[in-house]
């Protein structure tokens, strides 16, 4: 069928700068660039370009520039270029629109409407370079009260504490499965987490044997497909997470096409090579909080009550009530993934229209658990589109215990957010199983870049905490008086539990 779609991008090649080295040709998995055998010049077929910027970044003479191709002359406020293109695409294919990464729609980003406090005159600020500053935090169930006994003149804890995860900084790398991303990416996250004293999450695709050595800093996932779940997997980990939902696609499952299930993925997921890996939308053994409780306690039994069990859900309308149920079902950690959470593949309409922003979800869940007197029984992990240390510190002030970083971690490793993860042709070697592409992600470099990011953000958080006159991240948690809203309605402020800027 003749396509009505015009290319999304325009590639400009400066012929005076082009040295015809062919880097662009060899690096593009979408076959945009090719050599004209008649005269050795290089041509570009823009209709295949996804704007991953691989060619632009690697071109040694900066001869390439990518531009948006503004060509939809009749677009208007309702019938935007994007909308028209989606309809043309579907009229040509008859298929569901697929995409990757997090929601790009302009829903309000509340982080940009929240400002932090700082000390002036009446209370001293703290310089983290000269005075102690604590970013360490612990995830897991905390007791209602602690009892101590005096033994030989010193105090000893009598209360038996539930298992805890110790984080040297309030970050974790989000669940991204082997299959969705390549082995090298997981290795890089595992190594960076180990070095920085934080955690990474396997996602639902199992844990490769070679990564078991990073188990102390690994959270393993148990999802509806149960891929790669067995005794050694649970034993290897520091914590187990039951994945109910994901912010990018609440309410729907996953589908890893068979062509991505090579030997490595097949072995790790424990499914035959070449078969589709289907994660059902629900867990077929969980239809109620009571059923969830059974799985939580099965996993606790299997790990002899030595590891915290987390339950991850997408932020949806009733998130506070659901979170309350999850805590009462026995979870040690509730992980909530907001509407801007990323994915390796999701139907575009689901990603762009289902769920609620993480800011509102954190505030609602923290408040509900506090109101019910059970906030101490579980830690809250927030996920979904955290872009900077400022977003993270605001999340903690709203009530989160720590934050999952998915997209930010991928961007640190080279991702350019082209949203084509689902094609398996990631030119940055991240969301691919293709042996020609995945070697582009050198785990040595990627681990260093991740560690650098965690280091930088930790420093920034220390500076911001110090400015507020606080010397420990745990003293900020849920301390919403350190936040003020700018340009938010009364309803939004009420849900966030934050006063407007200017109000004392």
């Amino acid at each position, binding site marked *: 069928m003749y396509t009505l779609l015009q290319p999304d991008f325009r590639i400009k090649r400066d012929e*005076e*700068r082009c*040295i*015809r*080295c*062919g*880097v662009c040709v*060899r*690096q593009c998995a979408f076959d945009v660039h090719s050599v004209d055998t008649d005269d050795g010049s290089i041509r570009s077929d823009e209709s295949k370009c996804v704007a991953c910027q691989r060619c632009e970044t*690697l071109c*040694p*003479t900066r001869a390439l520039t990518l531009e948006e191709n503004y060509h939809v002359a009749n677009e208007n406020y309702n019938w935007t270029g994007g909308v028209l293109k989606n309809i043309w695409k579907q009229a040509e294919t008859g298929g569901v629109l697929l995409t990757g990464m997090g929601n790009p729609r302009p829903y309000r980003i509340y982080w940009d409407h929240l400002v932090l406090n700082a000390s002036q005159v009446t209370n001293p600020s703290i310089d983290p370079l000269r005075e102690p500053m604590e970013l360490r935090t612990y995830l897991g169930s905390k007791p209602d009260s602690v009892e101590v006994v005096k033994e030989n003149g010193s105090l000893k804890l009598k209360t038996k504490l539930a298992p805890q995860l110790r984080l040297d900084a309030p970050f974790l790398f989000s669940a991204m499965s082997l299959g969705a991303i390549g082995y090298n990416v997981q290795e890089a996250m595992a190594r960076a987490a180990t070095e920085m004293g934080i955690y990474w999450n396997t996602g639902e695709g199992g844990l490769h044997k070679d990564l078991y050595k990073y188990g102390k800093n690994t959270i393993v996932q148990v999802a509806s497909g149960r891929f790669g779940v067995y005794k050694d997997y649970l034993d290897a980990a520091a914590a187990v997470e039951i994945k109910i939902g994901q912010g990018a696609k609440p309410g729907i499952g996953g589908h890893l096409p068979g062509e991505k299930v090579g030997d490595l993925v097949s072995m790790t997921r424990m499914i035959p090579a070449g078969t589709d890996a289907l994660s059902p939308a629900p867990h077929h053994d969980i239809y109620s909080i009571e059923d969830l409780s059974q799985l939580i306690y099965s996993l606790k039994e299997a790990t002899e009550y030595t590891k915290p069990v987390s339950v991850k859900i997408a932020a949806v309308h009733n998130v506070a009530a659901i979170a309350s149920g999850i805590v009462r079902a026995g979870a040690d950690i509730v992980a909530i993934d907001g509407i801007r959470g990323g994915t390796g593949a999701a139907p575009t309409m689901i990603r762009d229209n289902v769920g609620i922003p993480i800011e509102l979800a954190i505030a609602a869940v923290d408040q509900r658990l506090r109101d019910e007197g059970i906030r101490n029984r579980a830690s809250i992990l927030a996920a979904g589109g955290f872009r900077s240390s400022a977003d993270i510190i605001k999340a903690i002030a709203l009530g989160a215990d720590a934050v999952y970083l998915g997209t930010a971690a991928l961007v640190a490793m080279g991702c350019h957010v082209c949203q084509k993860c689902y094609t398996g042709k990631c030119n940055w*070697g991240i969301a691919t199983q*293709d*042996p*020609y592409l995945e*070697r*582009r992600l*050198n785990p*040595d*470099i990627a681990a260093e870049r991740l560690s650098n990011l965690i280091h930088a953000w930790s420093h920034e958080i220390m500076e911001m905490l110090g400015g507020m006159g606080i010397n420990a991240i745990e003293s900020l948690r849920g301390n919403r008086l350190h936040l003020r809203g700018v340009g938010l309605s009364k309803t939004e402020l009420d849900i966030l539990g934050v006063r407007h800027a200017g109000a004392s």
Partner: protein
Amino acid sequence: MKRIYAIESVCMNCQLCAVFCATGHSRSKDIIKAHNREKVLPRLFVEEKRPVSFAVQCRHCDEPFCVQSCITGALTKSLEGPVVYAEEKCVGCWTCVAACPYGAIRRDVDRKKIAKCDLCAELTEPACVANCPNQALVYEERGS
């Protein structure tokens, strides 16, 4: 001696090593001039059989066949280790090209000379190593 080693598992076949090798061996040291005007040849080869690729430079062998086969004395093994090439003595007979077991010597057909890795003697690190975007080349001492 220090040698250049390829780490094949992370070589991504961009071949920027060859681009920067040629630039480093150009008169202008300018990447665009080196390729578009001077037409300098790189002193290395990128072997490619997808998905695998890696750069091959002169290995600076301990007992180099090229030196033994050179009919004019243009190639010599220096005391410090590198196999040194004196271009003015080369007559373009290609005997060394045939003798090299690694296929690391390039023919500069137009000039009837060979082109071969000199480890960028004037730099602290060879250009190919310094410019590899994925650290797939290292310059290090591994013993012989």
